[in-house]
């Protein structure tokens, strides 16, 4: 800085040195004007640079470099560098923030950040979808204006966030959300939202299972006990005794088949992975057709088609039981005169075993729950048909162990199609 002052003073001295001889030899006024002209030149030089700086400071740009003259150049250079560094820093921070938001966006849990007045500061797209929010329009809106369920409002105002709040989503979907409030940055709050629909469903399935097992076993047991009591207390003639004993035998067989199915299910669950031995599908399909014909007793039209070009690698007994189950279901739920079609064919990726019928069909709402244990579309009917309620659960498990998917399609009154899709790894091509 001091060098600048010295420089300015030297320039003033220079103009006075020129002005002094002019003043003494020519005229007083001429000397003064030379001196003033010197100073004015210096002023013009400074003003030009000043104007340049003024222009730049209104709209600082860094693409064209800022150049000054003389002493100004240093100042301009420093300012220019400062501005450039600042911009780079901001860009860097922007990048970091953007990545951070991208990370929040990638979370599978919903996140909503609230400010001190419970207004929405940020929410990720999962939360938008879960709560029906839209960040672009709802930023700054109190969250309780949009998530209005009284339980939620009470939870947020209650201030006791030990336990998460379980909330049934009211946005048309039948979802269950678990909302947890976590404080951050002082008194601000973060909502963490998990979709627990599946967990709640599993819980219900487990409860239902225990209740169902007891119920399924108790029903025949009650019948048995009733008949036993009758036999003990009343002297019956031989014919009645026989009739009762037959009924009792039927019930005990029922119980036996339920227990058998339960054991099968648990043995499948705990068994080691199925073997990779080749199962001859052509003969298996043929056997299924014969079984189906025997079960149908000539009341149905049974069609079987097997692609001889490929076979399955897996455990034969498990597959026989799974496929047999599907075929038996098709026969049972198809009225006399209907058609049951058993097919096995290679697909682009793997192969597919399918059983198609022209039976009574299944309502769409039952289909997702069909493979649950003891789940019944029509309680009375399936028991009359001799089912234990475990068949499809066993099928699904056996197929899963073979990495196969069970695909169910059905139209009420038209028919159903149960297909087991095997991946390429489980299919053996016949040369």
């Amino acid at each position: 800085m001091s060098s600048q002052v010295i420089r300015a003073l030297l320039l003033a001295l220079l103009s006075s040195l020129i002005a002094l001889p002019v003043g003494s030899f020519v005229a007083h006024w001429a000397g003064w004007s030379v001196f003033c002209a010197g100073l004015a030149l210096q002023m013009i030089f400074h003003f030009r640079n000043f104007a340049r700086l003024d222009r730049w400071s209104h709209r600082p740009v860094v693409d064209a470099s800022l150049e000054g003259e003389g002493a100004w150049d240093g100042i301009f250079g420093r300012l220019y560098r400062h501005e450039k560094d600042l911009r780079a820093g901001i860009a860097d921070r922007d990048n970091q923030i953007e990545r951070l938001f991208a990370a929040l966006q990638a979370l599978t849990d919903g996140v909503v950040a609230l400010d001190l007045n419970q207004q929405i500061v940020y929410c990720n797209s999962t939360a938008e979808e879960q709560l029906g929010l839209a960040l672009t329009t709802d930023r700054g809106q109190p969250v309780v204006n949009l998530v209005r369920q009284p339980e939620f409002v009470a939870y947020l105002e209650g201030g006791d966030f030990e336990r998460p709040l379980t909330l049934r989503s009211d946005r048309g979907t039948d979802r269950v959300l678990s909302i947890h409030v976590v404080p951050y940055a002082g008194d601000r709050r973060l909502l963490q939202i998990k979709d627990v629909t599946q967990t709640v469903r599993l819980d219900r399935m487990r409860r239902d299972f225990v209740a169902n097992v007891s119920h399924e076993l108790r029903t025949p047991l009650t019948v048995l006990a009733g008949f036993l009591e009758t036999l003990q207390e009343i002297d019956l003639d031989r014919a009645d005794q026989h009739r009762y004993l037959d009924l009792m035998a039927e019930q005990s067989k029922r119980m036996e088949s339920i227990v058998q199915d339960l054991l099968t299910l648990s043995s499948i669950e705990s068994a080691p992975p199925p073997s990779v031995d080749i199962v001859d599908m052509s003969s298996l399909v043929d056997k299924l057709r014969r079984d189906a014909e025997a079960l149908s007793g000539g009341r149905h039209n049974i069609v079987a088609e097997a692609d001889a070009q490929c076979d399955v690698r897996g455990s034969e007994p498990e597959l026989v039981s799974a496929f047999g189950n599907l075929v038996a279901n098709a026969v049972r739920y198809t009225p006399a005169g209907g058609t049951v079609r058993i097919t096995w064919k290679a697909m682009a990726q793997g192969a597919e075993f399918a059983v198609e019928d022209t039976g009574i069909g299944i309502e769409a709402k039952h289909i997702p729950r069909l493979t649950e244990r003891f789940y019944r579309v029509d309680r009375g009917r399936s028991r009359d048909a001799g089912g234990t309620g475990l068949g499809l659960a066993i099928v699904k498990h056996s197929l899963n162990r073979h990495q196969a998917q069970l695909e169910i399609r059905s139209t009420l009154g038209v028919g159903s199609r149960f297909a087991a899709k095997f991946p390429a790894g489980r299919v053996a091509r016949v040369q």
Partner: protein
Amino acid sequence: MNESQHLSSQFDEDLSRLRTHVLQMGGLVETQVSAAIEAYATGEIASVKTIVETDRKVNELEKAIDDDCAHIIAKRQPTASDLRLVLGISKIVTDLERAGDEAKKIAKGVRRIYEGGHLPGQYGVGVRHLAEAALAMIRQALDAFARLDTPQAANVIRADTDVDVEFKSIIRQLITHMMEDPRTITTSIDIISIARAIERIGDHAKNVSEQVVYIVEGRDIRHTKEKVQ
């Protein structure tokens, strides 16, 4: 919408709090309606008592909010859009309270049906569908109010026509049903009163949406065929 005009002022806070109160009352009404529909679908008449009791809370909220509106008008003498907001709110709460009453009516109808040992039977689905539509309308109307979103409000107003049409078709079905089998008349009349209540809820949602248009645009579109964009 007035944030820019009186930033951080006490008045602004009052208005914002008032809006949140209205929406909280709306949330309560939404829950009431969906609980009443749930009771209709499942036949769990235990919840009817809760619905009837909660309706008192809705009524209290209406009075409290109306009081707040009067206070704001007297103390702050709002003008222009602020005044419209306060006036609109005092009308919205009336509609919300009535929608709450309709929910109570549904709940009581459900109790009559199930206590009489009847089942809504095959009309269960039709009425439930109607109810889902009305519930969606009230939800969207409140969302439109929260966001001051007129296109959304316009959607609700249009949806009301569909609900009306569906209501009429349910009535026609029930009339046929009653003529075929006079023993079903008692249940059918109860179902009609439930369907009627649901249809009214749709009307109230429409009224709320009309107030949203009034608050935002200053146009009164009640009882007119004026198009909303």
